[in-house]
């Protein structure tokens, strides 16, 4: 057996010179310190994304994106297709866990200031992928074409429409018309299975290549205060990779338990002529923004409260994306406590507002 693998290796090595790659991987190390555990969430996010791609492709075999057939095709997947219920439930749960994992990964990078020079592009590609992940969630939510998803999309796109100047055209572009219709379903389906995955894969490749090329970022105190000889490290291959694999297996177990005990429900088919269900709420990852907008008064000075809220979230998102460029202190290797305070505020804000939104 070993001979067989050796033969295969040499066959490829003879043609594409794998030796240099193996040598590169052999020299790649992961620093060991008290915050090392956060490194694993990048891998978990990648694993969950792969699950999304695989289960998404399987769902595509049966899903039909039209108002007449979308709900029925999902119903068919859930009741008639062998293990269709499992694939859909895993897809739904993995989507939530993916966004949760991305949140953790992004905040750990933020608190470690891992975005500082020379990793600005890695941060930007990561932040863009986070926004795309939210886009995946929004576009995928409508696809079963049930009552809840229909009205949630209506409310969500209405909020987008409130953005000054560009809001209305963006809303019409998203909906494929003035209202949420079959055109919206086709459009969001296109975004969900083609446009977003395409852009995401492109960003992911850049992100991974940069991580491999630049190696793992070290925390400031670890990087500057410890002499190189005292720094603990472990080989990326196979040690870190096997630990990653171990965590992936645990995540897979959690995913299977969630999918079986809490399978994805279908609800009732969307009826555009019915009234919106009472207490309609977006998915949990949008809840903090949705809840915040509720607290804004109708008018603040010269503009609508909701519009101001949306603009503030837009500004916060932009500042978040560009943090490597305004946090000059960290890039110079100095401690910047302000960043810690901003991060703590953001985490508390998101958790509290999400809980308030959930319980209201």
């Amino acid at each position, binding site marked *: 057996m070993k001979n067989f693998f050796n033969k295969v290796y040499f066959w490829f090595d003879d043609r594409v010179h794998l030796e240099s790659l193996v040598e590169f991987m052999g020299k790649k190390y992961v620093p060991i310190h008290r915050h090392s555990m956060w490194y694993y969430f990048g891998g978990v996010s990648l694993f969950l994304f792969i699950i999304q791609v695989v289960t998404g492709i399987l769902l595509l075999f049966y899903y039909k994106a039209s108002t007449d057939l979308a709900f029925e095709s999902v*119903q068919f997947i*859930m*009741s008639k297709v062998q293990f269709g*219920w*499992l694939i859909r439930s895993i897809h739904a749960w993995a989507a939530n866990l993916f966004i949760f994992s991305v949140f953790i990964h992004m905040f750990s990078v933020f608190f470690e200031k891992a975005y500082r020079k020379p990793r600005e592009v890695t941060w930007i590609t990561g932040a863009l992928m986070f926004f795309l992940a939210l886009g995946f969630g929004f576009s995928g939510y409508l696809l079963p074409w049930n009552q809840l998803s229909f009205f949630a999309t209506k409310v969500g796109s209405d909020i987008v429409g409130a953005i000054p100047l560009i809001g209305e055209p963006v809303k019409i572009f998203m909906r494929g018309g003035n209202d949420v219709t079959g055109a919206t379903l086709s459009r969001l389906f296109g975004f969900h299975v083609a446009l977003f995955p395409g852009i995401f894969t492109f960003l992911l490749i850049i992100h991974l290549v940069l991580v491999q090329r630049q190696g793992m970022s070290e925390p400031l105190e670890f990087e500057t205060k410890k002499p190189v000889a005292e720094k603990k490290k*472990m080989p990326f291959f*196979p*040690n870190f990779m*096997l*630990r990653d*694999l*171990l965590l992936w*297996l*645990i995540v*897979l*177990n959690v995913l*299977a*338990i969630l999918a*079986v*005990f*809490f*399978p994805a*429900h*279908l609800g009732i088919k969307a009826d555009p002529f019915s009234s919106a269900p009472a207490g309609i709420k977006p998915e949990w990852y949008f809840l903090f923004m949705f809840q915040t907008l509720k607290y804004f008064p109708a008018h603040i000075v010269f503009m609508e409260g909701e519009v101001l809220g949306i603009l503030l979230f837009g500004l916060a998102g932009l500042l978040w994306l560009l943090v490597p460029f305004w946090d000059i202190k960290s890039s110079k290797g100095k401690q910047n406590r302000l960043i810690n305070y901003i991060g703590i505020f953001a985490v508390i804000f998101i958790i509290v507002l999400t809980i308030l939104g959930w319980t209201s």
Partner: protein
Amino acid sequence: MKKLTMIFFIGFIFLAANYIQAAGDECFNCHDAQGDNPSELFKNDIHHKKGIPCSGCHGGNSKSDDMDAAMNKDAGFIGVPKGNQISERCIICHSNPETMKEYGADIPTNQMELLSKSVHGRLSINGKERIVQCITCHNAHGIVEVTNPVSPVYPLNLPKTCAKCHSNAVYMRNYNPALAVDQLDKYRTSIHGIKNAKGDIKVAECANCHGSHGILPVKDANSSVYVVNIPQTCAKCHSNKSYMKEYNIPTNQYEEFSKSVHGIDLLEKHDLSAPACNSCHGNHGAVPPGVESISEVCGTCHALNAELFSASPHKKAFDEHHYPECETCHGNHGIAVPTNQLLGVSKGSICGKCHTPNENVDGYKVAKHMRLLIDSLSYSEDFADSLINNAEQKGMEISEAKFKLRDVNQAKLEARTIVHAFNEEKFDSIVVKKGLATSNIVISEAQNAIHEYYFRRVGLGISVLIISFLAFVLYLYIKRMERGK
């Protein structure tokens, strides 16, 4: 001689009384002297008897025998009132309780208020006045009390008074072309109309059901003949034991009806398609349906049941025995929701009344078999329903089977209809081939879903074990590998 003296004396008293009354009404005196029709009629008018002069309605000065002074417009003389002016003259007194009390009248004073809101209070086609004025029904100069048999609104005269307009097709099409104009003709064929024609003032005439001054359109929910209000309107008389005593008919119809399937639908759920009294008995031509026409009456709504019954062997048998068709099994005013218990030969069943093990044996066997089948279908439906609920509670996607369960219920409803054909073969085809067959499919699908639920749990357990084992092996491998270094 004594008799002659007495006649002379009475005549003198009568003339004196008339003289005293007319003494202050110079208009009447003059017109009476000319012998014109209005003054002739006015002699018997209640208003004349109460001492109300012509000027009470026509204005002017009745006390003056000078025509110019009596009919002086400055003194308020209006001549013959026109249009709404007519009713407006009446309400000067009839809307004023104080004035009415002065004349010793205890009649209501809201007639005009009611009339103006009624269907008759709408504008006539000339757009200038109400359709109906007081004199349209009560006459002008010969107005007498309602209890006076010569009054046009006396119960025996009222149908004819209303018919003056309502039987006039040319007139009625100006206002409501869709409204029938044969009410009087139908009324005269009804029990009410026949007794009314014979002089019975207690039986219902137009005003008893429709009201008098405040008559509203039938479609107005406040109308006494609005479909939901009809049972109460009929019950005013028909539930009154003392009032109905002399007619010797039951007075519990409303009580029974209000508890019946029809009554609950109409009175509680306000289902306007549910029948009221008139749906079966007719309205203007109200009579109890004859024994042989009951299925026709019920059949106006339950058409298929009636058709099946008419073609069944029971039709002839019922006619021969003079059994009231539908009523024999279902009752009349207190019809309850039919249950399986009606069918069969067990205690409480209807069929067993005629079909016994010794008498009409074939029917006995068929009824027994039919009951067994319909009970099986009901049991099977309940079982399928409980399995579906169980599967749903377990979070299984079972909507298709749930949808099929409707077909089982549909088959049960069809069976309850086809039973009126009293044909075992037809009944079997619905219950067995349609109902039980579908029910078995639903049961099977629901059981599969429940089985699938447990299969998923077991599958999860095995998967978790395998993945956990792999993770554990990997953990040990990592530990060994890192220890080795």
